[in-house]
């Protein structure tokens, strides 16, 4: 009996998904998905290898040389030491910034007053070339940890704030009408409708914010004081060890992608029961 219900249920929902779902992209079987991803990487890295062998520039190493250098740096602890330094301002900045920026964005979405007061600032901040502001940070906060934390926050805050704000404003008007018609208080409306509905865009903002924060910390390490990964890049460039320099850069890209992916996994596991 229970089996039959489950089976008929599955049948129905499959039918539904087939009939009602607007299929924008063609479906690819899951084993082929991996194949296409591998091909994508192979094309990029293959192109890199060829470009390095021509070479397009004497300072452009091949992919294989870069990977060898990356392996060396992993094994001798150079990378671990550098990242131990780099993640400090990054984590500190992201923790401070994500809480405040989400609250600020949500506040802007919920209140016209907060919106008029602060929306222009964040739109300008997002449009402004942040790298140009880094010398100003040094002027105000010196060259220590504080300056780097500020750089991380300046880079990531506008994206997180604006995404949270958009998330709140994008709440479906009919869901708002629905909650009003069932006599939700303003508090219930915010907690039970607006925030869950905005959470997707808020988390997207956090992911973009982490990526921007990584940019911020690397900029700070390149422009303020050479520490961590920024120091590695600067050092290897100065001694013309280009494979190591590119390996450092590659490691940041990997680091940032992994961080963003982990954040997405966490979001799906914790907040998306429907998927």
């Amino acid at each position, binding site marked *: 009996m229970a089996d039959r*219900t*489950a089976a*008929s*249920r599955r049948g*129905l*929902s499959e*039918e*539904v*998904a087939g*009939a*009602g779902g607007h299929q924008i992209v063609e479906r690819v079987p899951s084993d082929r998905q991996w194949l296409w991803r591998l091909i994508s990487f192979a094309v990029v890295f293959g192109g890199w290898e060829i470009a390095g062998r021509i070479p397009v520039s004497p300072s452009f190493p091949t992919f294989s040389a870069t990977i060898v250098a990356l392996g060396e740096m992993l094994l001798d602890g150079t990378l671990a030491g550098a990242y131990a330094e780099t993640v400090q301002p990054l984590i500190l900045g992201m923790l401070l910034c994500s809480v405040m920026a989400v609250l600020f964005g949500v506040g802007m979405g919920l209140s016209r007053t907060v919106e008029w007061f602060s929306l222009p600032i964040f739109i300008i901040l997002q449009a402004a070339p942040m790298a140009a502001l880094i010398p100003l940070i040094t002027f105000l906060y010196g060259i220590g940890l504080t300056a780097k934390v500020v750089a991380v926050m300046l880079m990531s805050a506008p994206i997180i704030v604006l995404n949270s704000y958009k998330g709140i404003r994008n709440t*479906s008007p*009919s*869901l708002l*009408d*629905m*909650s*009003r*018609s*069932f*006599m*939700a*208080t303003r508090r*219930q409306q915010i907690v*039970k*409708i607006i925030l*869950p*509905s905005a*959470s997707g865009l808020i988390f997207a903002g956090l992911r973009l914010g982490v990526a921007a924060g990584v940019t911020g910390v690397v900029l700070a390490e390149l422009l303020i004081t050479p520490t961590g990964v920024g120091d590695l890049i600067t050092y290897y460039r100065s001694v013309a060890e280009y494979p190591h320099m590119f390996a450092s850069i590659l490691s940041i890209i990997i680091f940032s992608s992994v961080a963003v992916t982990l954040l997405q996994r966490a979001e799906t596991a914790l907040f*998306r*029961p*429907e998927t």
Partner: protein
Amino acid sequence: MLNTVLSARNGQASGTPEAAVQVEGIGKRYPGGVEALKDVTLDFPAGELTTLLGPSGCGKTTLLKIIAGLLDPSKGQIRVKGKQVHGPGPDRAFVFQDFALMPWATVLRNVAFGLELRGVAKAEREATARKYITEVGLTGFEQSYPHELSGGMRQRVGVARALAVDADILLMDEPFASIDEQTRRKLQEDLLQLLQIEKKTVIFVTHSIEEAVYVSDQIVLLSRRPGTVSRIIRPNLDHSTDLEAARRDKAYLDCVDEIWQTLKQYLV
């Protein structure tokens, strides 16, 4: 055959006990100057299904939202069971054209949502929700999410949610408009069956003449914007014996035709 009441004013002494909802001199002008409704006065008899029918843009949905308390009228007042109301109330429940289901919540939570907002304990509100989920024919889908359901099934959830709060008045805003024709017919039949169990006063907005004639006790034809009451028609179909037969009834066909003749003049 058709009992047509030509004037909306007749028999409208305010305070008539059998009127569940009274609309008195309602006018609505949107900011920007669009006049959606002009001096609409109407009674909605208790226990009956009344349809608001009219050309698109005639203010049917506006009127329904004013009755729901989701919009404020510019003029006039709404009385529910004789008492003037401002804003939404526990006596009215709304069914939305786009279903307005929370995509992050299961069918069970969606149906129980009105009770959740009222602070009803979880076990109690879920028991109530399960009862109505069964009533609308969605047993087995309690733990499904809206995106796993078809349009027709989603609107069944919407109907169950409205029933679960036990309001006497059901406000349905083109509830079946975004559902395919075959499913819509089934939903219309199921709605009529459901209303035989649940004695509700229903105010139903639609732009489909066939749907209006099939489900209604009373049809209110609205004129083009600014909407005013043009005619009130009672189809007098007999649904008690056979739900299917009503669609072949001569009274049904005549009524559809008569409404079409009236509405045609409002089309450009």
